[in-house]
């Protein structure tokens, strides 16, 4: 059962229960607090560098080369994983898996907790996951696990993540990688 953040174990949407909505352009959400993007990026890097088994979950929007941004982001995700000492487990599609997902190799939005439990993941980054499926998964993760969730969204963000960064394009990802390098050096990791 989750213990992170003011919403705790709640499976309920924070938009309704806590009246927390996505941040405006240029801002980010750290739990229920509006902060500058840099502040959120530092906290995200810190969580990934200090919690057990940090993992990046890239979705179809970066796994498939459907536009130029996707190609750039895919390379950036690999670089980010190296900087953060993180694993990459893909969410390559959204179809529920029957009879059971293989949690070693993939994560699925319909039962994301299985992958997180199996790999004992305590911090994760969602990137390139279509917004609806990210939102469905983030609520379940908060309800069922104690994993610290970070959403890097190219659109408006995901208030159900513990840190949400919006409008994340290749330029912003470069910025995050640089901040992650600084935090890593500060932590001596």
């Amino acid at each position, binding site marked *: 059962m989750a213990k992170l953040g003011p919403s705790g174990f709640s*499976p*309920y*949407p*924070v*938009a*309704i229960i806590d*009246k927390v*909505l*996505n941040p405006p352009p240029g801002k980010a959400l750290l739990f229920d607090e509006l902060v500058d993007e840099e502040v959120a990026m530092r906290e995200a890097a810190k969580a990934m560098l200090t919690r057990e088994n940090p993992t990046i979950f890239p*979705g*179809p*929007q970066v*796994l*498939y080369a*459907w536009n130029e941004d996707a190609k750039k982001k895919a390379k950036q995700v690999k670089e980010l994983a190296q900087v953060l000492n993180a694993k990459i487990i893909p969410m390559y*599609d*959204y*179809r*529920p*898996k*029957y*009879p*059971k*997902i293989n949690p070693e190799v993939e994560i699925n*939005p*319909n*039962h994301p*907790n*299985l992958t997180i439990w199996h790999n004992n993941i305590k911090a994760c980054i969602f990137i390139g996951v*279509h*917004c*609806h*499926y990210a*939102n*469905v*998964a983030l*609520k*379940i993760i908060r*309800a*069922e696990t104690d994993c610290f969730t970070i959403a890097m969204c190219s*659109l*408006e*963000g995901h*208030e*159900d993540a513990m840190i949400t960064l919006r409008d994340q394009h290749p330029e912003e990802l470069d910025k995050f990688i640089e901040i992650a390098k600084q935090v890593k050096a500060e932590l001596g990791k």
Partner: protein
Amino acid sequence: MSNLTTSEVKVNKSGQRIVSPDYLLFEAPREKFFMTGSEAVKEAVKRASVDASVSYPITPQSEAAHLIGELWVEGYVGVYFRGESEFGVMSEVAGCAMAGARTITTTSGPGTLRAFENFPMWAGTRIPVQLVLMARGVNSPLSIQPDNLEVGFLLDTGCMIWYAENAQDLFDMILAGFVVAEKPAVHVPVITVVDGFFVSHTREAIMIPPDDIALPPYDPTKAPMPVIDLEVPPGRFLRDPFVMKSNYISYATHASWQFEVRAAIERSRPYAKHYLRGLIEEFGNPEAEIVFVAAGTAASQAKEAVRLLKDEEGIEAKVVKLKTLRPFPYEELRASVKNAKYIFVPEFNVVGWMEREITKWLYGYSNATIIGAPRVAGGMTMPAEVIVKEVLNYVKES
């Protein structure tokens, strides 16, 4: 269904110049016309870069669907066809929207009920369809006359529900509806309600911008679910029903999914506030202790009652008109009734669904007495004098 971004598109497929939603709604010069509510629907759709519309042209409801068909003939609507029934229409509308088309349809009364299973399905599949609902009686018993009982049924389908008072509201709400519903973080259907016959069939003055400008086209690449495109990744993923496919956590998935749809409606709140210029509108003395809370034609008639109460009885009153029901403007409502001693909720139905809503949201926030009256239904009108009489009776008794 263009893959171009808004900034790259200069004209839409009909040759209309693309302008920003803010320009179209707030800044473009407007000219006065005299038209029915149904004709206002046509004029809004004409300026909305609509890709598809499906109709079930049963009579008598309104000529709105027929008029959208005329727009197809004129080249303003990409695809237009007739469904086999209201259920068929709402299913086909879903198909168009899942394929990435900006889609609109209309219905009313028993047709709404026949199609009902589709409305929560629309919301669950996160399609930004627009339904113009010209409310009229349902089978209780069958009526074709004005009555908004069906709106009470729709409240918890997961769709946004906006309520237009008149043809002007309807015109503006249809355009704003697409803009808000298609925001990536929102992306749920919008039902724009108007009272059938009172608004759909009567003419009134309405201010509209020129018809050579239009909304930017819908960009389905920003949808929160991939559109169904079997050729191009990442869109080629079908939407399997998760409940049948996994014994693991399917209940949690379903719960999270439904909560997510409701969260999406919450995310619409700031956008709706902007494009509708607030979620409520107040009319009358802001400090009045007698307050009418209403939507649609009931709000119009309550405004007339406010005038009569002041002019003939020397009693101050005000109207709080609700423009949206989902999201429900509870903060605005609570602030607007802070001085209220009596809150009247006039409604065009027998069950008082609006009174239930008001009572729920004001519980613990207002000491005012909430009175679910007057109520008319089945095609009755609600003369302002009837509202005044209700107030005078109550005030005298207390």
